[in-house]
């Protein structure tokens, strides 16, 4: 093994460690502030390579309105799925799409993009 091979191997392993840590291990959840207007719990969510915030806590039994603002044209985020509430919605780019539903049960529910790459969770308490 020559020097450059040792170097490439070390850098490669280092990068692999970093990638693994970056995507799988590092904590990366952002909580949400909910405002309540006329009994409706509202959360504004920005969609740009992911959902921010990506953890949303809402109260059970009170209607929820999630306002998704899609701040990009990347087709990855063009569809929004909240399967537990039977919601499949197209999010037009640079527009806000309001999604309304009524959480009846406590629990953690996932929302994702159409391909399941971008994810967020809805925590109903």
């Amino acid at each position, binding site marked *: 093994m020559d020097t450059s*091979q040792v170097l490439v191997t070390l850098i490669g392993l280092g990068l692999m460690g970093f990638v693994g840590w970056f995507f799988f291990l590092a904590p990366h959840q952002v909580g949400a502030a909910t405002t309540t207007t006329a009994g409706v719990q509202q959360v504004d969510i920005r969609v740009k*390579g992911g959902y921010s915030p990506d953890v949303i806590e809402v109260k059970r039994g009170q209607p929820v309105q999630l*306002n998704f603002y899609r701040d990009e044209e990347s087709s990855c985020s063009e569809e929004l799925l909240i399967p537990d509430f039977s919601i499949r919605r197209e999010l037009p780019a640079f527009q806000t799409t309001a999604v309304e539903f009524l959480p009846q049960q406590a629990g953690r529910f996932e929302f994702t993009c159409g*391909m*399941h*790459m971008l994810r967020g969770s809805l925590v109903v308490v």
Partner: protein
Amino acid sequence: MHSHPTAPEPVVSPPAGPVNTETATLDIEGMTCASCSNFVERALSRTPGVQRAVVNLATEKATIDFLPTQIDRAGLKAAVEQAGYGVAETAANATTAPASPLATDDELEARKAAAYAKLRRRFGVAVALAVVVMALSMVMFWPALMARINTPLLNYVQLALTLPVIFYCGREFYVSAWNGLQHRTASMDTLIAVGTGAAFLFSLVATLLPGWLTNQGIMPHVYYDTTATIIALILLGKVLEARAKQRTSAAIKALLGLQARTARVVRDGKEVAVPIEQVQFGEVVVVRPGEKVATDGVITEGQSAVDEAMLTGESLPVSKKAGDAVFGATINKTGSFRFRVTKVGADTMLAQIVKLVSEAQGSRAPIQRLADKVSAVFVPTVVLIALATFVLWFDFAPEATRLPLALVNFVAVLIIACPCALGLATPTAIMVGTGKGAEYGVLIRNAEALEKAYQVDTVLLDKTGTITKGEPAVTDVITVPGYQAGELLPLVAAVERQSEHPLAAAVVRYADAPENRSGNSTVAPLATADFRAIEGQGAAATVDGRAVLIGNQRLLREAGVTLTPVLEQAAAGLLAQAKTVLYVAMDGQPTAVLGVADTLRETSVSAIKELQRQGLEVVMMTGDNPQTAAEVAHQVGITRFFAEVLPADKAGKVQELQAEGRTVAMVGDGINDAPALARADVGLAMATGTDVAMEAAPITLMRADLNGVVTAISLSRQTMRTIKQNLFFAFIYNTLGIPIAAGLLYPFTGWTLSPMIAAGAMALSSVSVLTNSLRLRGFTPNS
């Protein structure tokens, strides 16, 4: 500490006790950012009389609690306008009505069309430039030509041509990958960005600093052709995908397109054409032949045949008369009629169907779970594999070629991996499948129901109203010698017309049926006199001067009429077939017996046969006695049945079958059978009459016809087959493609995969999955 000057506390605190505040919602125009909405909110809060104001930027609405004694709507509007923003005027009723799922979003459509046009333009540019770059890079295969060309210059030309491909055509991939990284998420864009980025950056160094690379012992080779071609091919995939995706959701669009745009409403005695949105509950609407029925209602006058195929899948027009329900979006065929509006907007049948189908398309099938778990870790894992590929090639390949081989295989791994195929495998099939179901009058509530229906091995049918029509009909007329049924029936019907008994209605229907009128179809109903209904026995009247009696045996016995042996025998025969027998006497003489029974639906026998042919065990359940049950079961070819089942025990029977290890589909009417439908693995509610209980079961059959069960089960089977094919393909494609791209075959066969071929495979893989799902559009119930 003091309060902020812009948000003062109310000077006068509201008086204790009830305060009459009102709430108004205004549509604010002109807000572009969060600071705008804050500004409007503050402006409103400061306005006297406003107790609380909340402005939502996303919905562009202000919700204001105010004291009507101090300010009104116009005052609020003025306050907003003073702040420099506008208030959109909406029709007063539009703000209170719930959003109808029928509202089409033309703007959304236009935006999608624009995005698609842009994508195509980017694809076109990428292809044109990639072809030129590719041609230029071919020069090096031509040593004679190569010798005369200045290689650095050629590289610069290729660079110039590739730059627009990266920064115009492929810009989205890099931007999206970067955005994703900020959220620590990685998508397909990340793979493309890293893959093409690596190839491009190496080429850039080779172009700008070839001497430096040569000094390091590295060939200054460029990969502009690879970079440009990958981007062009992936954009091709995206174009095809966008086109195919549009077709997967075509069902909803088709349903939305069905609704009428205008209605001919009777106002002040005149017929006025008004937009459908303005039709109000209780109004009377006129429908002429060939016109679309505007909304749901009940016919008040006139009769016609209506084509309801779009809602129920029934291909034959349904005849309608006064008192019958009609539904919006159906087409009036022959006559004219007027109907009173009973439902508008979101309450109509069409709107409910649209809502149901779109909810089903948003639901998740359990089979998808594995694919979802894989997709969640897919991209980072592929990046790890790609890095490992680079290191291994660099460490083990011959020194002269190790860097190009490591780089090319690194790029190939990143590019060939296709998380999209996994992501699209299930939902696209579900979307096409549920849409197709709606077309045939089979409404599937969620993906889970579709998946369960495929596992069903036993179909439990409720008898009354499901296998049979659920209403009595005359099946036999046996007369004594000297009487013809044709002359007898009008007399009997004349008596029964006065009666309200369900059996009497069956006799009237039978007598009125054209085939029983013995030629003279225009005979007016005969005059009757002295009608008497005899409780629990039957009825009597004088018709055309003759005393007619019709009822049970007791009626005749008490009237002193004795049956002839012929009639006695006929009655016994009918009773043995579990039919109800009506006895007829004329002027004190026994003349006929009529057999009345609940009749089978025309399609029951063939549908049950088809279910059995598909390997399903069909079981019947009824509250009737065992003889009746056995007779019906025999007629339709069912061998196993439960008789004398009380309504409350129906769910128990489902459980009994499940305890035998069966997966049970229960078919019932959705009202009386609700617990059994809920208990079954899959409940199918058959729409009976005008009310469709769509909430009652996971699957609703819009047509009272057992063929719907056949359609539902075969649709479920085909959809699941498609999903399995898709998932198999997506998993196999990735598990084979990634190792091959990594160069696993190289030690044995000397093969490595060009990143350009990888890009082609990747573009085609998601399109293949979509195309396979779209094949479901060719589904027909009989295939």
